[in-house]
């Protein structure tokens, strides 16, 4: 891989990578079983440079912000490289947000350049707030031939001849602004520097290296910190290849493992669980004798890999299982949300190591990772090289808030010095997660100190962000909480949101009110919905400026009501 210590910016490292491995394949893009694009590093360079030149001609200046809203595909990475080449800042936005949410974040980050897929652009232009937003340049990918682009340009045609000027950046310059949440209220734009990314990349590849020939299957959205790092920067600075699939249908994902002989893949817990279920169902269908033999072989593999993974041996013991994953899989990478230890153990026992980790956008990508020496399903691993972790105010069980100090920690929240000061205290980032270290230096997580949940799909949901959907609800007042914030559980998983209702005097909880709540809840994307509600019989405590004192209210509810008091919606 490139020696990242020699580079001051992502753009410089990526530029050298394109020259270092000209004939290696860096990108494959497939739509279902059809391969659409296959680019070598040299091809990538030839595609990205005319775009960089066109951006330059369109007065894209160093430090300008360009938002990308795209599903995982080659044009995402090509665009990001072109932006870095011009010294710009990439703002990756989650393509699964609604158009209104996109507009809110675009306004917050003040991106004047936008690169977006056609169907998302169409939704954006039809959104009520669109007219008030001015883009200097919007580039739309894959637009149909006669489509009305509402002033945007076609990405495919936005190219200029000539050498684009490479704009050098310094380590402390901003590389990306990544939103960790805040679509409903207070946007949290994590300002991440080139130093953050280069240090994170160096640290991750120390334990999980890439090299030419490695193929990484990119399934997590590229706007997500994990995929941006291990599905773009990491592979590229090592001469490896990224495989994009334009669909997440399980049957095509399974095919891709085999067709492209995938080496690494990152998965959210939901997908991992789905894979486990699929494999388990196949095992259950085996005739009794074969099933018995399989269980014996799995047991043998478990014994032989107790101290460390022995992938070569596991492939020989359980060839059919490994062939189903293409035969060259070295590890499944997971993190970002709670994964049941039994699921992790299931894969490890089959000889497929699982790199389970923990991280947050504010700290780059990952803080801890399983080093597989030996594999542990009950922890989120050890701190990565260069990461210092501390447990603040531990209780009698050693559990306290996890704080981190590392060169991977963001510079600040965009335009929010107050929140930055609350979150980064004397150089330590307060994660809001509760954990402790065991005797072997592994971090175990036990829940969250903050009022938020992380879904099985790896999404951070802050209750404050979704409350607006209940605006105008005919009750005296309401508030949304994470269940584990109301009733601390000292465990991860089973996280859900609870709507707390304070009814008017003499008001009854009628069927009509319930239906109103349900209808509003349905306007939210499925992963953001409130799961339960409780009726609270006291006025909410409020500040002088009439803001709800959430912590005080949560404390009062937690002490007065049992978790079972929350009724399903």
């Amino acid at each position, binding site marked *: 891989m490139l020696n990242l210590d020699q580079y001051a910016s992502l753009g410089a490292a990526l530029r050298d990578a394109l020259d270092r491995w000209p004939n290696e394949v860096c990108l494959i893009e497939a739509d279902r079983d059809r391969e659409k694009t296959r680019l070598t590093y040299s091809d990538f360079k030839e595609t990205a440079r005319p775009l960089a030149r066109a951006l330059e001609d369109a007065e894209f200046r160093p430090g300008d912000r360009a938002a990308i809203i795209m599903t995982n595909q080659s044009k995402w990475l090509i665009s990001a490289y072109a932006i870095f080449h011009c010294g710009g800042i990439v703002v990756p936005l989650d393509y699964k947000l609604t158009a209104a949410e996109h507009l809110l974040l675009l306004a917050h980050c003040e991106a004047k350049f936008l690169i977006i897929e056609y169907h998302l652009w169409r939704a954006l232009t039809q959104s009520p707030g669109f007219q008030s937003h001015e883009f200097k340049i919007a580039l739309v990918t894959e637009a149909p031939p006669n489509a009305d682009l509402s002033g945007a340009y076609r990405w495919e045609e936005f190219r200029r001849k000539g050498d684009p000027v490479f704009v050098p950046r310094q380590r402390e310059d901003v590389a990306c602004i990544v939103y960790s949440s805040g679509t409903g209220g207070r946007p949290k734009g994590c300002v991440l520097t080139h130093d953050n990314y280069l240090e994170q990349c160096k640290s991750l590849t120390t334990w999980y290296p890439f090299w030419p020939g490695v193929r990484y299957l990119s399934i997590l959205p590229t706007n997500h910190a994990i995929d941006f790092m291990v599905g773009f920067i990491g592979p590229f600075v090592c001469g490896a290849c990224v495989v994009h699939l334009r*669909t*997440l*249908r399980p049957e095509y994902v399974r095919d891709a493992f085999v067709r492209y002989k995938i080496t690494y893949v990152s998965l959210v817990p939901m997908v991992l669980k789905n894979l486990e279920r699929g494999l388990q169902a196949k095992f259950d269908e085996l005739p009794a004798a074969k099933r018995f033999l399989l269980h014996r072989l799995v047991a043998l593999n478990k014994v032989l890999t107790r101290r460390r993974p022995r992938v070569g041996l596991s492939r020989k013991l359980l060839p059919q299982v490994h062939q189903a994953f293409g035969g060259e899989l070295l590890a499944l990478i997971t993190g970002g949300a709670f994964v049941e230890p039994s699921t992790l153990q299931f894969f490890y026992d089959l000889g497929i190591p699982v790199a389970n980790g923990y991280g947050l956008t504010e700290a780059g990508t990952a803080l801890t990772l399983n080093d597989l020496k030996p594999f542990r399903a009950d922890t989120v691993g050890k701190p990565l090289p260069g990461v210092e972790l501390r447990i603040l105010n531990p209780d009698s069980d050693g559990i306290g808030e996890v704080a981190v100090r590392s060169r991977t920690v963001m510079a600040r929240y965009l335009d929010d010095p107050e929140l930055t000061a609350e979150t980064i205290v004397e150089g330590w980032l307060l994660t809001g997660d509760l954990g402790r270290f065991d005797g072997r230096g592994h971090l175990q997580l036990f829940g969250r100190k903050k009022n938020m949940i992380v879904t099985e799909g790896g999404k951070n949901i802050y209750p404050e962000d979704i409350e607006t959907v209940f605006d105008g609800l005919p009750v005296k007042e309401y508030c949304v909480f994470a269940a584990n914030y109301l009733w601390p559980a000292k465990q991860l998983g089973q996280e859900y949101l609870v709507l707390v209702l304070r009814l008017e005097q003499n008001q009854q909880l009628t069927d009509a009110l319930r239906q109103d709540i349900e209808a509003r809840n349905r306007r939210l994307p499925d992963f953001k919905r409130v799961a339960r509600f409780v009726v609270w019989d006291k006025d909410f405590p409020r500040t002088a400026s009439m803001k709800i004192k959430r912590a005080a209210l949560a404390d009062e509810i937690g002490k007065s009501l049992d978790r079972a008091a929350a009724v399903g919606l």
Partner: protein
Amino acid sequence: MRTPDQTLDEILSLAAAHFKVPREKLQPDDDFFKTLGINSLQTLDLLTRLEQHFQVELPDYELQGVSDFRTLAGRIQTRL
């Protein structure tokens, strides 16, 4: 050519069969995540089943923001 109502009815029948729930339990405006008790990954399975039945290709993004059968039927109808 199917009418929108026929498309909707066929989707309800297919979903009922695929997820093994009684057809009469499904209504056009039902939230299919809730009624069928499925997650977003399982809805992709349903999409594949619908593609095979209607002989159309439905990109994953057609399901984005959709959670009821009627809207889903509308998206499919435009591609028939």
